[in-house]
């Protein structure tokens, strides 16, 4: 990375590395310490003669403390230093162990000086004074066991050989490695360009290093850790007798007990691929279990690569690949499952959908995933002591685990007889209180097997229920099905399985399948579904809104209400010309994309018409880089919108306009002329700045006529003031006060005596309003410095990759950032436990920023958002509640509710 200002380019990495290498020599440090200590001692009124003169820098300094350490005479701080040094220096650790065993004659390390005659601190440690020699010995023994008792075998990893030169980097500088060389714990192995090397660990594991790779090996009680600083390795892990083998990169820890896998670590993140066995990857607060053929990247920007490619650099590539090919045979199920979640580009079931279907939902057959998820869940349970205990005490002891397993097996087994897709449809009720007709369909891949399986299950159930009627029946011929049964009928044909509570739905299906009757839904609804399949479907939900709105009008008419008013309500909501709603969820390279689009048969009306076509939203430029939540939109001409809304309300509530005219005259403010006309075409509302003590909200609205809007604001505030004065007998006066902020005319609104509630100014054609003068000062400072939210990376990186230059509206949230800010604001006054801090870290990490964007065309609104695969973000389908549970009667409830008392009130 090069940067230049005045003079030559500045390579930040190189210069930082030079600074990192900067070391003051010992003499300078000692002299400096003397000076500082004297100044401090003077202030503290202590004798400067003793402290500051025994710094622990060299091996000799530590050697000098061994006897005092073993005898328990060191201060706690100094003891910790000795133990820390011993952890990092195996030779010194052994020296300590020898001394502890009483092997005092053991030669000290070369150059060690004789133990000094106790130049002890003037205050001897209290615990030592109070304790006995026995207690001290026990404490020391416990400390040593705790620190070193379980640590490794004492052997060091060995360098086996290399293609090109490989170096060992230690404090003493780099040196060329030869086959058989031991790698000390503080040493780092570095391979050269085009080179590669092998390192054998004491447990027999072999690590193959790719070119320009850097790693160190750390033996500790819990196992051996390969610290991969950069580059790539393939690890053939030996079966671990105790502990685990870990490979740690900057952003992940891979742990295994015996397997073959590769880790590739760079600036963008790490990619782990498994060739044999199973590995556990901890990264970014989550844990994943990988099995042969699977791969994981810690950063969505890291694209997956073929495993063949990932190990091609290895000298043992051929062997690895041969093994991989065998594993691919063994792991066919894994492959099958991956294929099942691929997008589907056609559906043979669409032809069989009822003509009058108003809801069409297509979901992938996830039965295999259920089984896999359960296995992964059990792995997670067994690797966590807390979960294991819970599972054992609360689930396994009750025998619930066996029942769960049975259900999972049953789902997996049933799923195995079915095709890759399940389709659920609902048809509008034909009238009255009749419920909508639901139908579930899937392709049968093994009809005979399915029939046999379901038959056996039903026989068992019937036996268990003592021969009573079951809620499910298996049928061979839907045309022979009689009405009046509440049981779910399941029909298994040669290549189709279908289920419904409505006998009529299955009879119609049988007719369609035999070639009689219309093939599937028609019109715009059918077109939209087919179009979605052309682009690839994973999860799809389509609503025929046109038919639904027609049903609402009919329901109103049936109930003796005015259909014209029903139409007016639909127009006000913008639903009158709405034809279809399609929501989709798809996997992309970087995460999960959610999209919803509403199509209209003509021009959008009412609330749906508020959004303008995609255009630059200048109000966004008023938001600072501190923005954590924002809603912004390009709007239609405000006067048009106001007039249309008034007209629609007038249609719904006769006399509305007259009442409004009277109010306008009374208050001296006209909605269209005084409020809407001065406004422009875009606005933004945001939380922009600190949340405490008052959330820093910010409103920016484009204004064409600031003078007129200012008069309107003053009139409205004057009216509020008069109303308050009348009601509170002059207790509170609310005023608009002119002021100046950063040399600009500004106004504050609030109680005459007290802090203003709002401060605003007109700037660059926008009204900018914030919760107080200080906030306005801050907002203008950002504005004047040109620091804008829209230029920040966190906003930029969320913009969807599509053909649109502008959007009609957007909703941005960065809850994680806000949470972090709140914690910081709470500061040191809040003592958080380590676990709380960890949980907050996880939340901060998981609640990633997200951006929902809307594109409005004359006859369509599309909402779209992408959530990174390991994050919690916005889900359009979930947000709209359109992919909820589809259950019997649900639509009827919806229609009844909307026709009678809900938000879509029609009279």
């Amino acid at each position: 990375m090069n940067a230049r200002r005045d003079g030559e380019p500045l390579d930040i990495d190189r210069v930082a590395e030079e600074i990192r290498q900067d070391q003051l020599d010992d003499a300078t440090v000692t002299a400096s310490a003397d000076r500082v200590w004297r100044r401090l001692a003077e202030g503290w009124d202590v004798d400067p003669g003793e402290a500051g003169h025994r710094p622990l820098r060299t091996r000799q300094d530590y050697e000098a403390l061994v006897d005092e350490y073993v005898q328990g005479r060191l201060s706690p701080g100094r003891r910790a230093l000795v133990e820390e040094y011993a952890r990092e220096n195996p030779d010194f650790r052994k020296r300590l162990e020898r001394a502890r065993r009483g092997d005092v004659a053991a030669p000290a390390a070369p150059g060690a000086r004789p133990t000094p005659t106790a130049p002890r601190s003037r205050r001897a440690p209290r615990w030592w004074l109070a304790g006995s020699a026995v207690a001290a010995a026990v404490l020391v023994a416990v400390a040593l066991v705790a620190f070193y008792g379980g640590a490794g075998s004492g052997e060091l990893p060995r360098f086996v050989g290399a293609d090109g030169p490989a170096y060992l980097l230690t404090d003493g500088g780099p040196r060329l490695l030869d086959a058989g060389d031991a790698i000390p714990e503080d040493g780092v192995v570095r391979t050269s360009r085009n080179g590669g090397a092998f390192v054998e660990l004491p447990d027999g594991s072999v690590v193959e290093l790719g070119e320009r790779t850097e790693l160190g090996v750390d033996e500790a009680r819990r196992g051996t850790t390969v610290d991969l600083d950069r580059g790539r390795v393939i690890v053939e892990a030996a079966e671990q007798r105790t502990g685990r083998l870990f490979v740690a990169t900057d952003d992940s820890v891979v742990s295994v007990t015996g397997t073959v896998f590769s880790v590739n670590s760079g600036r963008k993140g790490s990619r782990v691929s498994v060739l044999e066995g199973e590995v556990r990857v901890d990264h970014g607060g989550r844990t994943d279990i990988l099995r042969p053929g699977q791969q994981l990247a810690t950063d969505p920007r890291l694209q997956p690569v073929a495993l063949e490619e990932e190990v091609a650099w290895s000298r043992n590539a051929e062997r690895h690949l041969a093994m991989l090919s065998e594993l691919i045979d063994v792991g066919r199920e894994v492959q099958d499952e991956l294929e099942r979640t691929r997008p589907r580009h056609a559906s043979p079931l669409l032809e069989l959908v009822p003509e009058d279907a108003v809801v069409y939902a297509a979901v992938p057959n996830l039965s295999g995933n259920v089984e896999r998820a359960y296995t992964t869940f059990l792995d997670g349970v067994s690797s966590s002591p807390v979960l294991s205990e819970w599972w054992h005490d609360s689930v396994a002891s009750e025998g619930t685990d066996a029942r769960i397993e049975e259900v999972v097996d049953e789902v997996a087994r049933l799923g195995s007889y079915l095709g890759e897709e399940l389709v659920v449809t609902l048809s509008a009720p034909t009238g009255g209180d009749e419920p909508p007709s639901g139908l579930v369909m899937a392709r049968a891949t093994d009809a005979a097997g399915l029939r046999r399986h379901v038959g056996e299950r039903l026989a068992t159930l019937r036996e268990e229920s003592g021969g009573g009627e079951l809620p499910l029946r298996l049928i061979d011929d839907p045309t022979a099905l009689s009405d009046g049964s509440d049981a779910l009928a399941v029909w298994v044909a040669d290549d189709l399985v279908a289920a419904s509570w409505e006998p009529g739905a299955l009879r119609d299906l049988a007719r369609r399948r035999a070639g009689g009757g219309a093939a599937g839904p028609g019109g715009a609804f059918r077109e939209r579904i087919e179009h979605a399949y052309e682009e690839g479907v994973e999860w799809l939900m389509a609503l025929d809104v046109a038919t639904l709105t027609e049903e609402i009008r009919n329901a109103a008419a049936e109930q003796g209400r005015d259909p014209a008013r029903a139409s007016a309500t639909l127009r006000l909501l913008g639903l009158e010309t709405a034809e279809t709603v399609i929501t989709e969820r798809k996997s992309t390279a970087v995460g999960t994309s959610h999209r919803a689009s509403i199509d209209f048969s003509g021009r959008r009306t009412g609330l749906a018409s508020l959004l303008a076509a995609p255009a630059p939203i200048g109000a966004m430029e008023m938001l600072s880089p501190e923005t954590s939540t924002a809603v912004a939109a390009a709007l239609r001409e405000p006067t048009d919108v106001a007039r249309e809304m008034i007209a629609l309300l007038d249609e719904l509530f006769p006399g509305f306009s007259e009442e409004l005219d009277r109010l306008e005259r009374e208050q001296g403010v006209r909605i269209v002329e005084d409020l809407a006309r001065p406004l422009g075409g875009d606005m933004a509302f945001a939380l922009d700045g600190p949340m405490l003590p008052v959330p820093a909200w910010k409103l920016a609205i484009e204004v064409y006529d600031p003078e007129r809007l200012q008069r309107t604001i003053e009139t409205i505030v004057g009216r509020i003031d008069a109303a308050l004065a009348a009601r509170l007998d002059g207790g509170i006066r609310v005023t608009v006060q002119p002021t100046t902020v950063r040399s600009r005319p500004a106004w504050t609104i609030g109680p005459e005596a007290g802090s203003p509630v709002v401060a605003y100014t007109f700037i660059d054609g926008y009204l900018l309003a914030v919760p107080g003068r200080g906030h306005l000062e801050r907002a203008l400072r950002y504005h004047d410095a040109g620091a804008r939210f829209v230029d920040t990376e966190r906003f930029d990186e969320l913009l969807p990759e599509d053909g649109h230059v502008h959007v009609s509206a957007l909703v941005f949230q960065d809850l994680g950032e806000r949470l972090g800010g709140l914690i910081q604001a709470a500061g040191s006054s809040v003592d958080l436990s380590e676990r709380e801090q960890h949980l907050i870290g996880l939340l901060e990490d998981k609640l990633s920023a997200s951006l929902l964007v809307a594109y409005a065309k004359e006859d369509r609104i599309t909402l779209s958002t992408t959530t990174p695969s390991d994050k919690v973000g916005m889900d359009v389908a979930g947000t709209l509640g359109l992919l909820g549970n589809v259950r019997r009667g649900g639509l009827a409830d919806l229609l009844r509710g909307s026709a009678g008392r809900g938000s879509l009130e029609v009279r």
Partner: protein
Amino acid sequence: MPQAHAADSATGLDPQELEGLFRDHHARMLQAAWRVTGSLEDAEDVLQTVFVRLSTRSDRPDLSRSPGAYLHRAAVNAALDVVRARSSAANEHAVEGMEERIAGGPRDAPDRTVRQRELRQRLRRAIGELSPKAAEVFVLKHFEGYSNRDIARMLAMSNTSVGVTLHRARQRLQELLDPTGEGSAP
């Protein structure tokens, strides 16, 4: 030069504890402060400031887990305060002069060494313009050699947040050091 305050007014650490901490950790703290400030005089001030602050704290900091890491971080932050406070040209001149003196004197220094020192000071100045958090993370990573994991633990951040902070800090430094983008690597 900061003045030491009498410790007996504080209820935190007593002089003997401070003495032990100073004795055990001053070298690492001084080295860190020297790397961040580029000036021995400033590094000494930083060392003194950290201990004076410790002695005057009314509450007792939690040093039980790793006093070394706590003091190291305190030194880095105090040193960053110094870097941020340097604004006047005279001050900068004095700083560069100090580094030259430590390194052996400008007259003896070959051109390359002078250029290197100038580049280091430019980087330090730019770090002083980063947000406090970004500056701390950058220094811990690039000057003090901590891994992202260690920094995440020390600062109670997630690994990802550390990675993102570092990335943004580097971008900001690049902007500060090369606003025209001319020197950007291809």
